[in-house]
């Protein structure tokens, strides 16, 4: 495997690890942005250009900014008393380690069964467009409906409630 893959993998995992371990919330948000960027570069390494650029546009351009705005609107800059880790942190760590162990064992045990093809697929935006309105038109319409509902819902949920003024 190429050194670029190792570099990107280390970058992504370091970003992810930093985002769950750091104390200050805004640092966590910036670290998860680094993880997103590393993942976008991994997608580009896998010849999935559309997915990579969509990852940058959506995750770094929208989700990271959403997270940052939410942190600033909920006074995330103040560190809570009693530490940032919950009292049952050991259980969480054990569960996460267990999940990784199972997944890793499954991947390594099934190496011979995974089909390998080394042809580089050449996928153009034209093909993606045809697929989106051809075979995948139903998921496209459902996602459109979902995004509309999510936009309206997020606005309503986070809106200021109009308080009745005492007369």
């Amino acid at each position: 495997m190429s050194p670029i893959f190792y570099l990107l993998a280390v970058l992504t995992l370091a970003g992810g690890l930093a985002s769950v371990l750091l104390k200050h919330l805004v640092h966590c948000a910036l670290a998860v942005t680094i993880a997103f960027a590393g993942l976008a570069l991994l997608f580009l390494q896998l010849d999935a250009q559309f997915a990579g650029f969509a990852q940058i546009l959506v995750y770094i351009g929208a989700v990271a900014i959403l997270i940052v705005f939410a942190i600033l609107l909920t006074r995330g800059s103040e560190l809570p008393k009693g530490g940032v880790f919950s009292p049952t942190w050991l259980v969480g760590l054990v569960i996460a380690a267990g999940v990784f162990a199972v997944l890793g064992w499954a991947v390594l045990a099934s190496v011979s069964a995974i089909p390998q093809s080394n042809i580089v697929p050449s996928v153009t935006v034209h093909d993606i467009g045809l697929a989106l309105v051809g075979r995948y038109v139903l998921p496209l319409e459902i996602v459109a409906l979902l995004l509309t509902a999510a936009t309206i819902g997020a606005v309503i949920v986070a809106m200021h409630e109009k308080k009745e003024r005492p007369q």
Partner: protein
Amino acid sequence: MTANFLAVNSLFVNLDQIFVLLRNWLVGFLPAALQPAAGVLLGVIAIVSVFPGLFALTTVFERKGLGRMQNRLGPNRVGPYGLFQPIADGIKSLTKEDIVPFSANAVVHFLAPLVLVVTVFMGFAVLPMGRNMVLVDMDSGLLFFFAMGAATELSVFMAGWSSRNKYSLLGAMRAVAQMISYEVVLLLSAVSIVMITGSLSLTKIVAAQNQYTGIFPHWYIFTPWGLAGFIVFAIAATAETNRTPFDLPEGESELVAGYHTEYSGFKFALFFLGEYLAMFALSGLGATLFLGGWSAPFSFLGWVPSWIWFFSKVMCAIFIFIWMRGTLPRLRQDQLMNFAWKFVLPFTLLNLLVTALWRFMGDGWQRWVVCTAILAAAYVIMGRLQMRSQHFGRRSYRYAE
């Protein structure tokens, strides 16, 4: 005669392709394995030297232009007509002390201008600046450009938050809110171009506009939906780069200097550079999408090199930016956001529908009439609806005694 004409023609073809030929000649000295990488590297060096040079020229033109519009001379001490002013500015910004606030987050404070400049430079990689003169001909070039534009917003936030300064944070929040609102508008106005061309590749979009009926070009701005789309794109580009009338995030009278209050010396120069480069990139994209990129305005002018057309279109757009800065007052934050979400966005969505209608009505004069009528009616109706909610009083005048 024919030989003379052919010689002159090949001279102009060579002039058009002069940079491509230069690059091929330089790269020819290297072994074949290194040639593609060396070609790209030469292109990168060219971009990194040309656009900051244009930035230096633009700063002096802006100050002189603004000065003339405000009935005063601009800088005129350094060099003939003040043209060497950027050199003086550069020396000043390099020799000023780099002050970092004590409680600022040093790493993020340092990285913010770097992230801005790097992502803005990446946007130039997909702009076709002349015939065969694009650095990377990507299949999804437009998507790459917008992805880089989206990544610049994060650097604005990083700058504002890391300074630990109320004015910076407020300026950064306002700037990010404005940028994400107008980013939606920018993308939607470009989607109608993608619909008609059928490709996200910027070279294909220029090639589709490089045809002539009679002497008139097939630029998209000469269609009703293209004109509406261009105006919307221009508004969104002005807001994306925080230029007047949308420059509240860096309004000097309100917020000191917004998100780059706490930056001094070279880092401030990098922010300045990043802002102007974003202006160049968006002007280049607007020229590519709506004004035909490197194609000539009339078919008999095709002998002029293509890169001259591209750069003159970009400089015209920059002149219009400077003109707007000298003429228009600043919009308030809520006026700006209202304008984006309640007027420009519905208009852009309607423009998308009109583009689809244009495509499916086929050739003929009917589609011109119908599309123009729909767009004009929508503009008037939505404008009146917006104005009715403003409750303007009668205009009153007060004269100085």
